[in-house]
C-alpha cells in the first residue's frame, strides 16, 4: 500500500498555491445580521410590518393628527355618515369616529403589548423550567393543560369574573390566557436543545445551569418566542377587543376599538360606520401581526440558508 507518485523533475519546481484568502478576508456575519437580511426580503414580513408601523404611528401621533377631540360631545352632529368634516362619521354622542379610532389604537395596542409582555415573561420562564428541569415538568404542564382546555376568551371572562371589570384586569386576563401557548412552545424547543451535544459539552466544562440556560438555551429558543409573540400580539388584541365588546374591558368613555364596535352594535341599522371602522382597524392590525409572524417564522427558520 506504500507507493508514491513519480517525483517531479528539477525543472518543475514545487509551486506554492496561493493561500485560501477567502478564509482570512471575508468578515463573518452574525446570525442576526443574516436574519435581518432575510426579513427585509420577505414579502409577508415586510407588508405586515408596514401595516403595523402605520397603526402604531397614527396612534402615537393621535394628539397631533386627530381632527377633533375624543370626548367632546355634540348632539347636533350625532350619526353623521362618513365624509365631509368627519372622515369616518360620528357616533351616538356626535364624537368624531376617526379621532376616536386614532386614540383607541393607543389603548388597544397597549393592551396587546402589556398582555404579550406579561404572558411572554411568565410563559418563557415556566417553559424553560419545565423543559430544562424535568422534575417540575409534569406539574407545570398539567396546570397549563387545564388552562388550555378553556377557549382563551372564556378563560379571560372567568378571570375577569374573579378580578372585576376594568382595563387593567382585562389586560391581566388576556395575559393569563396567553401563558400556556408560550409555555408549550418554549418547553418544546428547550427539550430539543437540552439534548444537543453542545449543551452536554458546556455541562462537561462545569458551567452552571443558570449560565447554560441564559447563554446557550435562551438564545436558541428566541426565534420561536419572537414568532409566537407577533402572532400572540394579534390574538391578544382580538381577545381584549372582544372583552371590551362584551363590556368587560375598557369602559366608556375610554375610546377602545372593541368597545366602540360594541356600542355601535346597537345602532347598526342607522349608523353602520360606528361598528365597521373600529372592526376594520382590529382586523387590519391582527392581519398585520399575522403577516409579520408568518414572515418571521420563515426568516428565522434555521433550515433556510
Amino acid at each position, binding site marked *: *500500500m*506504500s*507507493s*508514491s*507518485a*513519480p517525483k*517531479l523533475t528539477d525543472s*518543475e*519546481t*514545487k*509551486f506554492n*498555491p496561493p493561500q*485560501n484568502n477567502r478564509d482570512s478576508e471575508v468578515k463573518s456575519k452574525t446570525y442576526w445580521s443574516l436574519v435581518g437580511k432575510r426579513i427585509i426580503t420577505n414579502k409577508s414580513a415586510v407588508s405586515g410590518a408596514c401595516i403595523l408601523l402605520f397603526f402604531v404611528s397614527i396612534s402615537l401621533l393621535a394628539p397631533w393628527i386627530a381632527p377633533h377631540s375624543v370626548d367632546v360631545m355634540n348632539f347636533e352632529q350625532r350619526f353623521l355618515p362618513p365624509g365631509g368634516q368627519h372622515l369616518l362619521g360620528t357616533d351616538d354622542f356626535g364624537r368624531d369616529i376617526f379621532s376616536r379610532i386614532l386614540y383607541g389604537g393607543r389603548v388597544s395596542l397597549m393592551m396587546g403589548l402589556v398582555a404579550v409582555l406579561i404572558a411572554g415573561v411568565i410563559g418563557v420562564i415556566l417553559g424553560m423550567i419545565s423543559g430544562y428541569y424535568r422534575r417540575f415538568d409534569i406539574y407545570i404542564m398539567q396546570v397549563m393543560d387545564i388552562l388550555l382546555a378553556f377557549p382563551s376568551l372564556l378563560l379571560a371572562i372567568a378571570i375577569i369574573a374573579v378580578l372585576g371589570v376594568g382595563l387593567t384586569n382585562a389586560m391581566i386576563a388576556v395575559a393569563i390566557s396567553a401563558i400556556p401557548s408560550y409555555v408549550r412552545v418554549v418547553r418544546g424547543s428547550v427539550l430539543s436543545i437540552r439534548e444537543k451535544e453542545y449543551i452536554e459539552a458546556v455541562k462537561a466544562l462545569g458551567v452552571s445551569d443558570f449560565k447554560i440556560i441564559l447563554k446557550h438555551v435562551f438564545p436558541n429558543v428566541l426565534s420561536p418566542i419572537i414568532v409566537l409573540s407577533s402572532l400572540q400580539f394579534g390574538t391578544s388584541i382580538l381577545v381584549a377587543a372582544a372583552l371590551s365588546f362584551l363590556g368587560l374591558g375598557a369602559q366608556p368613555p375610554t375610546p377602545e376599538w372593541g368597545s366602540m364596535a360594541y356600542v355601535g352594535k346597537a345602532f347598526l341599522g342607522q349608523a353602520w360606520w360606528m361598528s365597521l371602522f373600529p372592526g376594520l382597524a382590529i382586523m387590519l392590525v391582527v392581519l398585520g401581526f399575522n403577516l409579520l409572524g408568518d414572515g418571521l417564522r420563515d426568516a428565522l427558520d434555521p433550515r433556510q440558508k
Partner: protein
Amino acid sequence: MGTNLVKKEALLKVEDLSIRFKTGKNNFVNAVSQVNFTINKGETLALVGESGCGKSVTSLSIMRLISNSVGNIDGKIIFNDIDFNQLSEKKMRSIRGKDVSMIFQEPMTSLNPVHRIGRQISEVLKLHTDASGDELKKQTVDILKKVGIPRPEKIISEYPHQLSGGMRQRIMIAMAMACNPSLLIADEPTTALDVTIQAQILDLMNDLKTNYETAILLITHDLGVVAEMADRVMVMYYGQIVEEAHVKTIYKNPQHPYTIGLLNSIPSLEDEQDNLQPIEGNVPNIGEITKGCPFFSRCTQAHSKCFERNPPLIKTNNEHSVRCWLYIHEEALA
C-alpha cells in the same frame, strides 16, 4: 472478486455524464463533470470517494431519479443498448426495480413504516410480474429465503420497526433482487450497519452476485469494503473520476496523489504504523474550486500547471486511467 472476466459484455455505459445543480436563478455548480464508465455483465464496479464528491448523484442520475428542477443532466446512459434518455417516464419505471434496482444507505427510512414487509415486497413483484394470490405470497417468501431471512412466513406479516437495522437492509436487498435485476446499484449499503452485520450483508451480496450474475455498482467510502467486493475501482474527487483501474492495481500501484493519500490515511489492522499520513486540508464543497485541478491545494506533488489547468483523464496503460499532470507528457498531448 477474482472472477476472470472472459466475456466482457458491456451492460451499462455512461458517457459524458455531467450534472449541474441550480443554486440561483442563473447560477449553476457542477456536481459531476464528464464522467465516463462502463459496467460489464456480472462485474462489480466500486465508485469510491468522500462526502460531496458526486458519487451518489451519479448513481441517482443513472436511474433518472434527479428531477430537472434541481439541475441539468447531460450525457448518455446506455443500458443493454437502450438509451435511458430516449425512454418515456412510464418505460423508465418499468425498468427501475426490474432490470436495474437500487439499495440505499439508510435501511430505516427506505421502508414504509405503515405497511407490512410482505406487502412492500409483493408490491414490487406485482409491478413487474403477473404473479397474484398464493403464487405472489409464495414468491415473496422465496425471495426472503434467498436473502437468508429466518422465519420468512412470519416476517412477511411484521412491520419495519419490528426488525433490526441488519434485517431491514436484508429486506431492502430482497426487494431489490425480487426481479433478478441485471444491475444492482448499492449506495453505501453497509455504512449504517455494525461490522458484524456488515460482514453478513457483504457476504450476502457476494452470494447473490455469483448465483445470479448480477452486476453491482457499489458506491462507498470504505476502502476495506472495496477491496473485498470490487472487480474494478473508480475513484472520484470533486465530481470527476480521478483514477480507474482493476482493484488489485489500485491497491498495489495507485497513481493519482489523491488515491495514494486515501490509502495512506487509513489505519491498518495488519501492520503497525506510528503516524498516519493524512491528506492535508479539507474536502472542498461543490462550486468552491473554479480553476485548475480540484485536488491542487491538498496535493503534495502540485506544481504550477496544476493550478492553471485541469488535467484530462488519460490511460497510463490498457486498464488504468488517471487524471493527473504527473502522468501526462507534453508530446502525448500534442
